[in-house]
């Protein structure tokens, strides 16, 4: 699962002045009632990961406020819990079941077959080909591209860093999107890449960040869940820039978090919940990309100059317009020709 971190208590759904999409509407004054129950199953990261699972949970919270549904959660202790957890909810005839994380794909497929009447949704995976499963996916490469542009322009040492959690294809989407963004604006800039092989070992994240900084990187982006807390701590201490992920992480260190790459899992979850409430639920893939506002960048702390924002927005528009495609794999990256805008 992607567990990009944000250490924000995921309490405020409202998007700030960011290019990301608006979430749910304001909660209605009188709490609406609905007897719908929606269940969410976390991956092994569990609730409180301050990013991925929390963000999804927030999406359901918004749906609860909005439509008066009841939400329930099951945290998976191990990958072997995915399937039994899906069954547990399905047996209760829960109205909609979320599996948060691409690792749910096979167990979700099996569950979808066992319970053809049951509505499911999976986050970060597509191509399951089940009519009762909604697939919520994000164009992480696009958001990462944008922060890559910012980093490439902002760096003074011509070296930037990337810290990944694990070498999942999903995390590589962040990596190569980011690399491409850097390359687009600053072809000479070196990108130092490390994988922590963990989403929890913050101490290691800090150590990697310190090492990358010592090697010359002055801006470091992470997609490594809890490991990122270490990066931000290091940035704070050593006075370099960190780029947050998933949610705006600037609140952790407004002086040190340059900006954050945004991935609106909450919006994705909310919108599928909504479709169940209003009866428009459909199986198949829902892509949340730059165009739909599902990914983007955010700068709550106001650390970006207008020039940087302008440059990033230029690429954002180009991506939205389909002028070019941000690479998401090594092969695509190698073939990537930076567009001249």
């Amino acid at each position: 699962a992607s567990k990009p971190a944000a250490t924000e208590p995921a309490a405020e759904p409202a998007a700030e002045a960011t290019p990301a999409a608006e979430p749910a509407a304001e909660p209605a004054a009188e709490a609406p009632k609905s007897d719908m129950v929606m269940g969410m199953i976390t991956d092994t990261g569990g609730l409180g990961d301050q990013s991925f699972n929390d963000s999804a949970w927030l999406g359901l919270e918004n749906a609860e406020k909005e439509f008066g549904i009841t939400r329930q959660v099951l945290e998976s202790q191990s990958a072997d819990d995915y399937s039994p957890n899906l069954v547990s909810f399905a047996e209760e005839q829960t109205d909609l079941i979320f599996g948060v994380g691409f690792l749910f794909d096979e167990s979700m497929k099996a569950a979808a077959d066992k319970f053809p009447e049951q509505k499911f949704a999976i986050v970060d995976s597509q191509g399951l080909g089940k009519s009762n499963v909604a697939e919520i996916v994000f164009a992480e490469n696009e958001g990462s591209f944008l922060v890559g542009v910012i980093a490439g322009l902002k760096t003074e040492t011509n070296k930037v860093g990337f810290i990944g959690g694990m070498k999942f294809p999903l995390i590589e989407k962040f990596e190569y999107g980011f690399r491409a963004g850097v390359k687009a604006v600053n072809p000479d800039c070196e990108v130092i890449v490390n994988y922590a092989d963990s989403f929890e070992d913050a101490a290691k994240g800090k150590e990697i960040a310190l090492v990358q900084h010592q090697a010359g990187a002055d801006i470091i982006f992470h997609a490594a869940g809890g490991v990122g807390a270490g990066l931000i701590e290091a940035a704070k201490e050593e006075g370099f820039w960190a780029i947050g992920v998933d949610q705006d992480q600037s609140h952790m260190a407004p002086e040190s978090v340059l900006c954050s790459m945004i991935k609106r899992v909450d919006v994705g979850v909310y919108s599928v919940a909504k479709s169940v409430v209003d009866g428009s639920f459909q199986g198949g893939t829902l892509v949340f990309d730059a165009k739909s506002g599902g990914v983007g960048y955010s700068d709550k702390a106001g650390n970006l100059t207008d020039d940087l924002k302008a440059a990033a927005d230029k690429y954002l528009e180009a991506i939205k317009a389909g002028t070019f495609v941000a690479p998401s794999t090594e092969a695509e990256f190698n073939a990537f020709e930076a567009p001249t805008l």
Partner: protein
Amino acid sequence: MVIFIALLASALRLATPLIFSALGGVFTERSGITNIALEGMMIMGAFFAILVTEFTNMPWIGVLAAMAAGIMTSMILAVIAIHLKGNQVVVGTAINLFAVSITAFLLELVWKRSGQTDSVKKALTTNPFHFLENIPVIGKLFGGMTPFVYLAFVAVAVSYYVLYKTPLGLRIRAVGEHPKAADTVGINVYRIRYICVGISGMMAGLSGASLSLGTISLFREGMTSGKGFIALAAMIFGKWHPVGAMLASLFFGFCEALQIQASTLGFDFIPSEFLQMLPYLATIIVLSGFIGRATAPKAVGTAYEKGHR
């Protein structure tokens, strides 16, 4: 040179929590008690350091709380292993499980959510001796040093001194080797063991604090990520000697640092997973190659029963 200093600095920081816990292990095992609960005591230390700092805003009080929490947890081991003569490994397993659960439980109770606490406003993540950074060449070494790094080495020196230069140390070692002999010269075997288990709790608590307060200023479930067991290995690797345990911890730290540096050193053609394995494989090779046989204190793992033959 710069790379080397960076490596060294990295190794020192990564070794710090291991050193504390391994020293704790040295004390318990030297007195004859097996301690596989270091991990659990670390978790308790890490959590209570943050909890108390959150409410007092005084990180050093948090450190004291971590030590206290470690000691309290260690007393479960002490009572069951020393007085009730329970199986020391079983107690250790239980403590590890207990620590994971109770911290997660309290976290939810206090912070009303799970997974991770807030960052505390004041932590101990910076170098307390800034003037050291001005030393030419090696000054860089001190940049990321938290107070805990210095403390770890002080702890090694103190542990060495206590174990080998004081009457208490002589008694501890005697109790671990031949408790009956110690008993016959009027040494209270139980008391010595309680003291040692307490010391190990204190050290493991410190170790936890060095992670939560010293590295990232918050507590996260799973943040100890098995370091207590690595520390256990470091203690055995270091042949139950404080200096040996320190060297072994540094070795682990160094290997991990090397792995982190791999990409800047130009080793990144090696798959990251193999780099991750490096410290572990190196340890096995070193152990089976030339360190070889390690002999534990004789009485380790066996409860002492007064008046038993």
